């Protein structure tokens, strides 16, 4: 089946990994030893977390770990009311199970417990001593679920290992962190990304001008996934086997949209404009962008050309404050708008004093 380049050229084994060689070597040693602790793998998106986990699984279990299928598991979170069920999609092989708990929502505690119990209750195949449960985006687990997880980890240690993937370790509660082997996968450097880009393009039979490679690496924010998507994008756009350096790089639609909003905010600070911006924020929300992401991108764009340090500091403080209230509150738009208005007021005040 045809795939996107990102997925097609994903390294399958630890040996194929292009960067963080020392880390690969360490994982290799773990795989060979036949014994593995629970792991907490964190790092920014697009740095290769899940790629490494898959390679590690392959290293341990061989081809069997790649024979995956998608299943819908039905779990009854409350054993007293078995008819009340939750569906969750999981990826399973004979040796491991991968789930994304953010799909579940509020009942994640019971669901994660049940799934792990299910995995642990069947003995591992093929002479292995344990199976693996991979929890993607573990940071989004409720603290309730995380607390329950530490007990589960110990109870099923004999037959089951858990790998947690998360953007940052700070979203994982300390007891869990202490039970896991922490592995941080940093974002690759600019040069490493260029290396990957060249490698992928040559195996696709595309000639990539080094300058363009540099440009893409700059643009992608040290995110390999983004870099490769950009590369494929440029290739599709140019529709030729050689890519020269003066190809324009496209950007995501949300990026342009948020930029537009930021421009509006800087252009006029009035209740009228606030109302217009609110409409645009509604539209961004309609695009299924997470609300905290909107605030974050917005503050970055607002500060981009800002000279006044005081304004910058205030903007950041406001963004941080309202992001935190948003987490606790229920009406996202209130908090986004509160941030926008705070910034408008501060910005206007700073213009007045100058």
């Amino acid at each position, binding site marked *: 089946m045809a795939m996107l380049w990102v997925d097609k050229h994903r390294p399958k084994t630890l040996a194929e990994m292009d960067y963080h060689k020392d880390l690969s070597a360490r994982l290799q040693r773990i795989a060979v030893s036949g014994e593995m602790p629970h792991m907490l793998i964190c790092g920014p998106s697009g740095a290769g977390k899940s790629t490494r986990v898959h390679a590690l699984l392959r290293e341990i279990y061989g081809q069997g770990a790649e024979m995956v299928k998608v299943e819908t598991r039905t779990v009854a979170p409350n054993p007293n009311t078995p008819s009340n069920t939750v569906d969750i999609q999981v990826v399973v092989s004979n040796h491991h199970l991968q789930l994304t708990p953010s799909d579940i929502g509020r009942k994640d505690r019971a669901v994660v417990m049940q799934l792990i119990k299910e995995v642990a209750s069947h003995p591992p195949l093929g002479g292995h001593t344990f199976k693996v449960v991979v929890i993607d985006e573990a940071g989004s687990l409720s603290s309730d679920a995380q607390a329950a997880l530490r007990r589960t980890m110990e109870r099923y240690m004999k037959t089951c290992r858990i790998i947690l993937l998360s953007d940052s370790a700070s979203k994982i509660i300390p007891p869990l962190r202490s039970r896991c082997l922490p592995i941080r996968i940093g974002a690759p450097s600019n040069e490493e990304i260029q290396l990957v880009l060249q490698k992928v393009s040559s195996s696709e039979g595309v000639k990539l001008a080094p300058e363009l490679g540099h440009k893409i690496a700059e643009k992608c924010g040290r995110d390999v996934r983004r870099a490769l998507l950009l590369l494929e*994008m440029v290739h*599709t756009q140019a529709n030729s086997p050689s890519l020269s350096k003066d190809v324009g790089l496209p950007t995501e639609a949300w990026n342009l949209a948020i930029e537009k909003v930021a421009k509006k905010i800087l252009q006029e600070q009035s209740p009228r404009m606030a109302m217009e911006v609110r409409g645009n924020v509604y539209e961004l929300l309609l695009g299924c962008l997470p609300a905290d992401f909107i605030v974050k991108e917005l503050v970055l764009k607002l500060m981009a050309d800002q000279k006044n340090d005081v304004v910058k500091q205030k903007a950041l403080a406001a963004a941080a404050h309202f992001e935190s209230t948003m987490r606790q509150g229920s009406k996202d738009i209130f908090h986004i708008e509160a941030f926008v208005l705070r910034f408008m007021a501060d910005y206007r005040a700073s213009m007045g004093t100058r």
Partner: protein
Amino acid sequence: MPYLWAEQHQPSTEADLVVAKKKIGEVKDFLGSSAHGRRLLVLKGPAGCGKASVLCCLAADLGFELVEWSPAMRGSRSQASAQPAGESLADAFLRFVAQADRYRCLEPSSSPAPSSSDFSRPASRPRIALVRDFPFTLLESGPGEASKGSSVFIERFTAMVNSGAVQRAVFCFNDAREDHKLVTRLLAHVDSRAVATVMFDSVPRTFAQRALDGAARAEGLPPGAVDTLALSMECGGDLRHAMNALQLAAGGVSRVAVNGTGRGGRGRGKIQRQPSRGEEGDAEKASPVDSGLRPQSLGIFHALGRLLWCKRVPPTSPGIVDLEIATPVAEGLPAAKRRKKTAAAVGEPKQLAYEQLVPKARRPPLYFVPEEVIANSSVEPGMLVNWLFTNAPRFYGDIGDLAEFSASLAESDVWGSSSSSGWSPSFQGSQAVSGFALEELAASVQVRSLLDANLHPVPPSFNDPFGAQSHSESSGPSGGLAFNMARPLMWDVARHRNRRQEELAGLMATAGPLALGSLSASPRVVLRTLPFVHLLLVASRGAHASLRNLPHALMKLIMDLSAPIDGETLRAGVAEASQARSQFGGGHDPDPGEKMPATWVALPEDPIEEI
């Protein structure tokens, strides 16, 4: 004989429909031409937006017979057509959808059934199978056997649609999360060319009012006896609900023409005591009507007006405040339309100038108790706050004030909402604060901060560019001063967002984990992958080597998601409403257009009432 107006006054012809022309056209297309191979129509939309009504009207116009599915039909049918008595729900449903009854000689289980062209049609008109309450139990995924049953059902259904056994079937679905989930699951493997989907939005206010006025006229109510505008505002796009409310409100009104040519809703209710209106007589006559919905529907508008205008009684001490001082400080703003009597009166509340408000400790007190206004508004406090939030910027003259208000909204949202999302269990156990009290307190804080923060109150001088109401009003014949409170869009936004997320999740699950490198529709995918998928599809004109295999529906959704700033979803309703508006103004039905502004024009002036 008791009956419901909602049913009694169901539209019977296409002209009576109060749904956007475009949507009607789409449904018509489907019914008129099965030649395109579209055999299954899915109507989605919130309750009471006229999904079934559209279908009924069009079916009648085009000469179809509408057969509606009901689970009860199973028993009676099995006798009539000599089916085995123990026919399962799934069998019955599938048979119904395929309209297998047309071919009595065939076994219903022999699928795929041959297409209808091979057989002579029955003498009756062609049928449309309508499914309004989909038998959810068929798709219920219980543990073990049951879930197998549901997947078998989906398989059979898919095979049936793909093979052409379904001729004309219409499924109506609500706008709830479960519905979206179910639809995507049901249609996951159905050939996308066989299915047409039409999305209905809630009925725009002007449309709803038109329908209500029509019904009121047909019932012989005196014009203005019932405040259709208020009802249409309140119903939130649910026309069925509005009709029922209308019937309730009209209960007891004599149907014979009444001499009172009522000036409409605003003249009545509590404000009738206002001497200047001079409508006492009229109001008294209408007072029996008030027993039902009146206080409530007036309540929210009054509460909004009172709170938003943020007036205070000026100090009576030296130099009686001239109106000139009280009007907006900013020169650019067009002067508010003033009432003559306000100018003369002393001690009449008005929007005060900044100078009179500055030391907050010494400014004149409020002339009302905010909590009482909230209580009298008779809507849920949270709802009132949403309205205030939506309309507040237009009443603020200074961005700093507005920022302050907004900040305190956000603060109190934190603890006000924690009741609904569940306190920590220990808190719940102690019963220290009940959820509702907390919510009420939060609303009270929010309302008070609205009043507290506004040091530069101004009359509204611009419209909410996205507010569905204000936009359409201002383009109407009466200018911007008709009822110009914008409806909160939060629910609509949440609704569409949920729908898209559910659809995306469902579609990605069917596309498989390899198609886009991820299984679930996590935010990560939405942010990092889908935008590029969109760009790739655009750049390659849909012919990208791997992406062209994506399900069509998924492609379309990705396109939708990647056009966030054009605001089509939000503006669609606005455009249609204003269209309708102009249509009423010059068209056959001048009544609602002309009368409504007259009844509501004074609202923004904040009527003074005794609470």
